[in-house]
């Protein structure tokens, strides 16, 4: 068995809010094989970004890791303390969501890239500059000599994101953590940046964790996928299999709520309800109030991620039904059943006016 590039085990993060505290990340575990990508998908607020920051040792003040372990190529990394982030140099680097806030506005971008080579890796000033120019070229920036002396505000969003990737690469990481790296960009630029990340992964043998709320992106980029809901992983497995036949109602809901241009034109089917407040998570399976398969037991039984063979796992009490029946049909039926009771009222209203 190979040593995973990144192994996350039982990661649990608590955030204090006023006097109470809640779990923003609850017992999250996954392993990323070298030179592969894993996608972490979920709605905004499900805890996926916080989990990345916890791995990077960059949690905000109010949050702390209460349990868990992180190892890069077998080397354990500490999750606590101010120095934790600094220890990541050479192991992990992160690409942030918003290139607008991820570059220091008052420093030339070239200097921001050259800093780590010069001050941490001990290169001379000239060598560090060479290295920065090389990286700028590597991330596809034309005319790196000129761009070296640019300030972030002089650059477009896509170029800033490229610079940020160059900064991340300057610290020579083995694993790249991408926190929705394309959400803040135009669609055309998104495609370019994704292409760049794929190329870099291949050229440099990087392993990539890719956090996003778009399942389609994961389908293009990642061998494996983890679906996160309300701070927990609800389904994991190889991406093609998960997309083909989701084994958790939430994954199915995510798939169905996306607009699919390949299929015949069909309105997206959003998941009813909204993500619960992490401090007031429903009992039992946190997804049960929004779930079309929910039964009374779902509210009382604690579900955990259970292996199903072929590298797949799901945290659903009724996973048997999804294995044997057609999930889509089940969902359709449930949707119809949910609409029916309201129907007579709607018709009556129509009659009254007519």
């Amino acid at each position, binding site marked *: 068995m190979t040593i995973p590039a990144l192994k996350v085990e039982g990661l649990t993060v608590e955030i204090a809010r006023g006097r109470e505290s809640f779990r923003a990340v609850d017992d999250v575990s996954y392993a990323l094989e070298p030179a592969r990508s894993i996608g972490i998908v979920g709605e905004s607020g499900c805890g996926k970004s916080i989990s990345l*920051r916890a791995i*990077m*040792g*960059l949690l*905000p*003040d109010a949050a702390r890791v209460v349990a868990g372990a992180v190892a890069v190529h077998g080397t354990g990394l500490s999750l606590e303390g*101010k120095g934790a*982030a*600094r220890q*990541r*140099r*050479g192991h*992990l*680097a*992160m690409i*942030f969501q*918003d290139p607008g*806030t*991820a*570059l*220091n*506005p*008052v*420093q030339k971008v070239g200097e*921001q890239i050259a*800093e*780590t080579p010069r*001050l*941490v890796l001990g290169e001379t000033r000239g060598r560090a500059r060479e290295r920065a120019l090389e990286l700028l070229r590597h991330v596809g920036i034309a005319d790196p000599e000129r761009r070296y*002396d640019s*300030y972030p*505000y*002089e650059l477009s969003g896509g170029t800033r994101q490229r610079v*940020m990737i160059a*900064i*991340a690469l*300057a*610290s020579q990481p083995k694993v790249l953590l991408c926190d929705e790296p394309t959400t803040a960009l135009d669609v055309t630029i998104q495609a370019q940046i994704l292409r760049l990340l794929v190329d870099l992964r291949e050229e440099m043998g990087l392993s990539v964790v890719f956090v996003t709320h778009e399942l389609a992106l994961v389908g293009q980029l990642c061998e494996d996928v983890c679906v996160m809901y309300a701070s927990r992983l609800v389904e994991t497995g190889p991406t093609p299999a998960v997309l083909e036949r989701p084994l958790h109602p939430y994954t199915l809901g995510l798939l169905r709520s996306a607009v699919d241009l390949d299929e015949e034109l069909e309105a997206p089917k959003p998941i009813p309800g909204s993500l619960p407040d992490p401090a007031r998570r429903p009992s039992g399976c946190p997804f049960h109030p929004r779930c079309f398969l929910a039964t009374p037991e779902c509210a009382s039984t604690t579900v955990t991620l259970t292996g199903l063979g072929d590298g797949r796992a799901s945290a659903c009490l009724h996973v048997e039904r999804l294995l044997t029946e057609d999930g889509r049909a089940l969902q359709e039926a449930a949707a119809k059943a949910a609409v029916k009771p309201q129907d007579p009222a709607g018709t009556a209203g129509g009659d009254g006016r007519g």
Partner: protein
Amino acid sequence: MSAPELATTGSSEQAVALEGFVVRSHPTLRKALRNRSLLTGGAIVGTLVLIAILAPWIARYDPLQQDLAATLQLPSWVHWLGTDELGRDVWSRLVWAARFDLATGFFVVLFPFAFGTLIGTLAGYYGGWIDTVLSRIIDVVMAFPYYVLIITLVFVVGKGIRGIFIAFALADWVTYARTVRSTTLVARRMDWAAAARSGGLSDRRIIVHHILPNTITQAIVYAMSDVVYVILAVVTLGYLGLGIQAPQPDWGSMIFDGQLFMTTRWWLSTIPGLCVVVTGIGLSLVGDGLADVLRPE
């Protein structure tokens, strides 16, 4: 074609090119040259500073030279702004007072600026108990009314310039500390600070090269208005008899001395007062302009 001519052309072209390069490659400088309030304020403050520096040549008499035979004279070609109650030339005193008051303003502000910025940065960056302790100290100093504190301190330490230095050093740094602390709190949570940390850079490097360039702007802008406050405080203290001691010319004591003759020699108080106002406007404009120019985009 003579060689010297060529050389001249060449060097002036070089100079123009160099200037163009400097301006183009420094967006801040470019913005500064377009900023109207900075230019206006800079012109006012620049003129005042020039007058202050050139005081020995601009003043026409010794500002301490009394002439009891020629007191309270009207403005004339001999005494441009007349003489005061001791027969001293008002114009000369005004010019020397500019030198003294401006220098006092700038130097008094230096220590609070540097110390407050340091404390604010440490508190904001490190947080935790360091922040708790420093913030409580700031709160305690802030709890006193500003002028009451300054006046009390000057009274305790001793009047005159030494007292003013010490009083401001003790009381004035908290404003800088508080401003810088809050901007540091924001800056250190930015993703670029996180990226710098995960790139393995030391705290010192991050503070000096990443955080401070973003936070110090606020402190610099405040320092501009603070110079005005210090000059006003010196004037006020002078009025209370705690400030600059006679016979040192200073706008505050000139206002104070002149008020007895307000009805017949109004300019004795009014003109030094106007000097304070003009200095205030100039420095405020510079502060505003700097805030615009230095604000990161």
